[in-house]
């Protein structure tokens, strides 16, 4: 079938209407790059007509020596839309924090116009630059040009996935550690694990500078690194009064919204019982000029988030309550290595770390990675009496103070 730039897409055309920028327009813009966009439009219109996707289950394609970074994709109607018969994506590892020079952006566009559809996702849900749609034979040349330009592929398959970070210290006053640096260092440290799938399943790192968690690390990362502080909230009383003077209802909007109710406001002075503060960020969020995280900064390490497949979605749970910033990189690496060792040995096929911990039990997992249990790791002790007492301890007298 011949490519017709003016392919008839009455249904998709409906999506050019309305105020929000239109992805259909974007696909149409890419028609000038080559014939792929046109066939994509055609196939998508077909999907809209018959309410079903027209992509086949991906095959294994990639670049030499890498086990990931490319998602193979083939049309199930290649006769009708030959230019998307292959329509693989490349995942290109974005720079930390998604900062770009325009020069770099143009280089990426140039490469992709030469080797692909001219369509991208800026960015994929994991954070990669997604080059959306090309043929198998373009993969290797595209990769060569990318690396020449200083870019490399991101992850796919059972590997370390492209780590991501919130904007952090680059443009945020609340970053409790350098998220961009940490993301970069970890990405570099695990290039091999990123490109050559070594695990039972995928493993994701995400770095947020504070408990606001602007990269949703607690929901989506096997290792979630969330900035926090150990000492007291920094407080500028004059600035507090200023907020009050400008109309902020400190009692209602700050004090009464504090989850631990550890603050009090007498109309003049805000008092924080820092010992009770759980570092939720709310008061700081509301009064950025008056309050900020303490000076003794670092991060909480949490483990195990994932989407529902197959044992149900998980949020990450606390593993180390506080690591000072200057020990963070080493601690993450050491911890990760120990976690991976255990996962490699005991993880089942397609079992994320979070599911493994659920299956073997947190206490056994801690034993395996050599961490002592602390009450911060749990919301409450067990309420069922089914304790697996260990033989050795029958002898000693357990005692409590």
């Amino acid at each position, binding site marked *: 079938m011949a490519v017709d730039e003016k392919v008839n897409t009455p249904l998709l055309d409906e999506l050019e*209407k309305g105020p*929000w920028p239109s992805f259909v327009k974007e696909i149409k813009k890419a028609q000038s790059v080559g014939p792929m966009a046109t066939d994509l439009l055609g196939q998508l219109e077909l999907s809209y007509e018959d309410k079903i*996707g027209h992509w086949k289950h991906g095959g294994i394609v990639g670049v030499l020596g890498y086990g990931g970074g490319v998602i193979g994709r083939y049309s199930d109607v290649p006769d009708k839309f030959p230019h998307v018969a292959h329509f693989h994506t490349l995942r290109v590892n974005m720079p930390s924090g998604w900062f770009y020079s325009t020069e770099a*952006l143009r280089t990426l566009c140039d490469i992709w116009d030469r080797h692909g559809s001219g*369509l991208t996702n800026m960015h994929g849900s994991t954070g990669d630059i997604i080059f*959306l749609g090309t043929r198998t034979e373009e993969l290797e040349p595209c990769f060569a040009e990318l690396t020449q330009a200083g870019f490399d592929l991101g992850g796919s398959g059972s590997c370390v996935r492209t780590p991501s970070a919130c904007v952090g210290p680059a443009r945020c006053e609340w970053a409790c550690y350098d998220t961009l640096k940490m993301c970069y260092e970890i990405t570099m440290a695990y290039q091999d694990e990123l490109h050559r799938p070594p695990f039972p399943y995928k493993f994701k790192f995400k770095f947020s500078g504070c408990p606001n968690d602007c990269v949703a690390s607690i929901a989506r990362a096997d290792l979630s690194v969330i900035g926090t502080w150990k000492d007291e909230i920094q407080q500028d009383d004059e600035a507090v009064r200023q907020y009050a003077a400008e109309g902020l209802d400190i009692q209602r909007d700050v004090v009464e919204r504090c989850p631990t109710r550890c603050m009090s406001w007498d109309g003049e002075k805000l008092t924080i019982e820092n010992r009770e503060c759980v*570092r939720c960020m709310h008061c700081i969020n509301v009064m950025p000029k008056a309050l900020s995280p303490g000076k003794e900064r670092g991060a909480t390490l949490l483990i195990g988030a994932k989407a529902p497949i197959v044992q149900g979605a998980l949020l990450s749970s606390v593993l180390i309550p506080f690591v000072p910033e200057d020990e963070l990189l080493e601690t993450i690496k050491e911890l990760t290595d120990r976690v991976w060792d255990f996962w490699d040995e005991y993880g089942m096929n397609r079992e994320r770390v979070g599911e493994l911990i659920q299956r073997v039990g947190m206490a056994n997992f801690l034993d395996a990675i050599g961490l002592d249990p602390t009450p911060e790791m749990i919301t409450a002790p067990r309420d069922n009496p089914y304790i697996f007492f260990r033989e050795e301890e029958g002898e000693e007298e357990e005692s409590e103070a």
Partner: protein
Amino acid sequence: MAEKPKRITDIGPPHYQKFLPPIIKENYGKWKYHERLGPGVMVHVSEAGAKCYTVRCGSPRLLSTKTIRFLAELADKYCGGYLRFTSRNNVEFLMDSPDNIEALKKDLADAGFPVGGTNNAISNIVHTQGWVHCHSSATDASGIVKCVMDALYERFTHEDLPAKLRIALACCLNMCGAVHCSDIAILGVHRRPPRILHESLRKVCEIPTLIASCPTGAIRPKTIDGQQTVEVVEEQCMYCGNCYTVCPAMPLNDPENDGLSIWVGGKVSNARSEPKFSKLAIPYLPNNPPRWPEVVQAVTKIVEVYAANARKYERMGEWIERIGWPRFFELTGIEFTRYHIDDFKHAGLTYHRSAHIRM
């Protein structure tokens, strides 16, 4: 082309420092506070008093290189040749003075890019591939996002909600994106067990792996015409699609029965309350391209009821927990059905085990 370049691997991403504009580089780690200057615009002030102005605009995420070049042009014109994207696929223009804000906003408006998404606005919808690229999808992604954002446009360009409101969409239960912790999640669902393509199954799938892949044990070995294949116990299938992921010969796509579900009340941040999962609001809405009116209407309704009823700083889930789920269903007019009652692993823990009842 002249010489084939030497093949290099494992170089990782470019170092981020190369891409930081001077105002960022100079004040890196030294920001003191920020102020909101209106929808989509804010200023961060450093300890030294330097100021970084940000203008944020919405994006369809699926961008042509043409549009990327256009955005790059704007960044050259106003921002010294740098820009960034956010974790929700918006574009941020960073400037060391406020002078160009209005001009930039005008250029963006002319090109059809809305400025907003900050503070208590609805930001961009995190979403996935849908019919544009994925083989698993029970629905399209970009199309629904476009329709919903068209309807909620004013909520993006204004900051007038009680709190942040994050919407996400995933086109199948794999839930690429943080759909499971969103204020509102739109989720593509299959509702029929996989079909079994016995011919190709024999060729491309490993039967023991396939059987092991099913979390409910619904897949059983079977012999048809002397050939080994499998069958699915239909009552045990919950349409998770894990079998299809490991075996292409078990597709779940079904034009009649695929559709969408709506989930509410999740959050990610630790602000005030702990992060929470989204909970089921509407089990099924039909796939109705190109404008998915049922989905748009459902989401809009939930947003409006929330906007009208929640207190300041109350995220969707915090509001619902305060008023209780019965009231949520009452206020939104959504029907409560057997599907809302959990029946997965920890279902028993969702049964209401107290006499705390609003009458």
